[in-house]
């Protein structure tokens, strides 16, 4: 996440709602602590001044490539008026500057196959170690685990999210059919998700690279116009309801059809559930679908349509396109690719210990004690007026040298009161050479 500084009023609304306490107000403006930020987009939703945004590309960036491919997220289909069909949305993408659309919803069906295979193998082979397994499809949840729940990293299913599978599939199957060299072909993910954008912007060079990311909000006007005025049909979608359904919370588990599964959405709900998994309280469940946004990707921070409305639209589109069974050709392709490790992550996931007080345990212990001491002095109101989200986080900031005790307006007030008392006492002290008031008055 980045700040649009000119829009930030320095209010403290965003700092309170951040699940990793990654925002401070300093010098009258919000500051995002990048190492803690998981790009969940909560602050975009909270900020009434619209001062939070995701780094993203624009349609101008398409010009860098001769052949431009759109990878639309399944949730895009639920953003338009009732009755608008996926094929109209795909056609509209072609009219605003893309040469081809390669549906992420179609790739999601392969991901469905891969997740199901992985679950089968894992639950058959590992006793009940590291259960429940956690879906890796939501990047904000994956990063929440890296920052706040590193112990749960072994629970994450190491299978690529659908958009990565889409890109890999494009390079494997489609690119060889084109007459363009790879560097002249640009892949752009059309997404509702700030975390996916950050993931793409910070990715190390891969042979299945996605070149850019465009948020729904920035394309909506143009797409809307084309959907309304352009003639129908043209591009026949490859996806069925199984892939389209991934756009909504619970869609992934419905697609994967795993009996002993649980679905959770909303970043704070997810955090509460992860807390329980860390205590080993949910080890009788096999599989958890966890989405940072309420209602799932249709509730993404960069969407236009109301999440609840979009969720219903997605459900209806999925039902209409058939959401009960994976198409036979998808299963067949999955059977070929799965044993080749096609769906697996290429990089290992590591912890991001951004909440650690110090690398050295003895220093960390001293800092922890100092925090305890500070907590007895602070008022415990968690008002946020100091620019840190809670009294506890102010204490941590002080210990880390990023704030001072007098940033607390209550402490400052106490200090002023003390100063005023001293001022009064000093003002009443009289030099020996001065005669007392009473005597002076008597003389008059």
């Amino acid at each position, binding site marked *: 996440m980045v700040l649009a500084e000119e829009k930030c009023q320095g209010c403290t609304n965003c700092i309170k709602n951040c699940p990793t306490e990654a925002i401070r107000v300093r010098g009258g403006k919000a500051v995002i602590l990048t190492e803690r930020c998981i790009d969940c987009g909560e602050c975009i939703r909270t900020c009434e001044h619209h001062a939070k945004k995701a780094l993203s590309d624009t349609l101008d960036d398409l010009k860098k490539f001769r052949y431009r491919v759109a990878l639309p997220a399944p949730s895009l289909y639920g953003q338009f008026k009732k009755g608008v069909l996926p094929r109209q949305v795909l056609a509209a993408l072609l009219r605003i500057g893309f040469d081809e659309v390669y549906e992420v919803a179609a790739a999601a069906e392969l991901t469905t196959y891969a997740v199901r295979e992985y679950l089968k193998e894992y639950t058959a082979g590992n006793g009940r170690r590291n259960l429940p397994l956690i879906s890796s499809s939501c990047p904000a949840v994956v990063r929440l685990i890296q920052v*706040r729940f590193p*112990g749960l990293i072994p629970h994450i299913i190491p299978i690529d999210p659908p958009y990565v599978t889409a890109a890999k599939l494009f390079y494997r199957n489609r690119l060889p059919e084109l007459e363009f060299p790879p560097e002249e072909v640009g892949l752009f993910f059309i997404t509702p998700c700030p975390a996916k954008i950050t993931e793409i912007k910070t990715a190390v060079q891969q042979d299945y690279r996605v070149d850019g990311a465009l948020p729904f909000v920035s394309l909506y006007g143009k797409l809307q116009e084309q959907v309304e005025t352009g003639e129908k049909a043209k591009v026949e979608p490859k996806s069925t309801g199984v892939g389209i359904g991934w756009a909504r919370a619970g869609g992934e588990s419905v697609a994967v059809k795993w009996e002993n599964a649980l679905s959770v959405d909303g970043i704070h709900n997810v955090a509460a559930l992860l807390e329980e998994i*860390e205590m080993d309280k949910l080890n009788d469940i096999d599989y958890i679908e966890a989405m940072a946004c309420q209602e799932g990707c249709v509730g993404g921070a960069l969407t236009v349509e109301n999440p609840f409305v979009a969720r219903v639209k997605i459900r209806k589109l999925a039902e209409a396109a058939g959401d009960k069974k994976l198409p036979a050709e998808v299963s067949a392709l999955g059977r070929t690719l799965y044993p080749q490790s096609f769906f697996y992550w290429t990089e290992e996931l590591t912890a991001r*210990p951004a909440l650690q007080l110090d690398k050295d345990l003895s220093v*960390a212990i001293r800092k922890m004690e100092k925090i305890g001491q500070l907590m007895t002095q602070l008022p415990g109101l968690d008002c946020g007026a100091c620019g840190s989200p809670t009294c506890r986080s102010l204490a941590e900031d002080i210990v880390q040298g990023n704030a001072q005790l007098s940033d607390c307006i209550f402490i400052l007030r106490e200090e002023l009161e003390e100063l005023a008392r001293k001022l009064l006492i000093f003002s009443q002290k009289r030099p020996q050479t001065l005669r007392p008031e009473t005597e002076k008055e008597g003389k008059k």
Partner: protein
Amino acid sequence: MSAPRMSLDFPVTGGDFIAAGEAASKIKKTLRQLGIDAAVIRRVSIASYEAEMNIVLHARRGRLVLQVEEGEIRVIAEDEGPGIDDIEQAMQEGFSTASDLAREMGFGAGMGLPNMKKCTDEIIIESEKNLGTRVVMRFLNK
């Protein structure tokens, strides 16, 4: 200056299912901030949670004490409660004296103490009938 050693107290109230689990959760958060290895935190969290639930389920009140020093973490669970009749029997999987209410809430499967034992490097249980129980759990932190 001697090697630093930290000790923190987390009170637990018997029968309070709303706050149940909070002490263990705070212990976990503290260890995370201290930069303790994730696998060790995992063991400490699970054992602390079980110990906390034992106090909530069986005792009037108690506390968890977290002690951290280089190389070792200790969690001490002390309570004022009924005490354990036969510690050896209580360590058996499936043995439980939890109330019907607790069982209805999904507790009392008789896995608490065995689970705690599995997670710790050493566990010492002292108990006196009608007075209370004290459990010392040691975790080596490489």
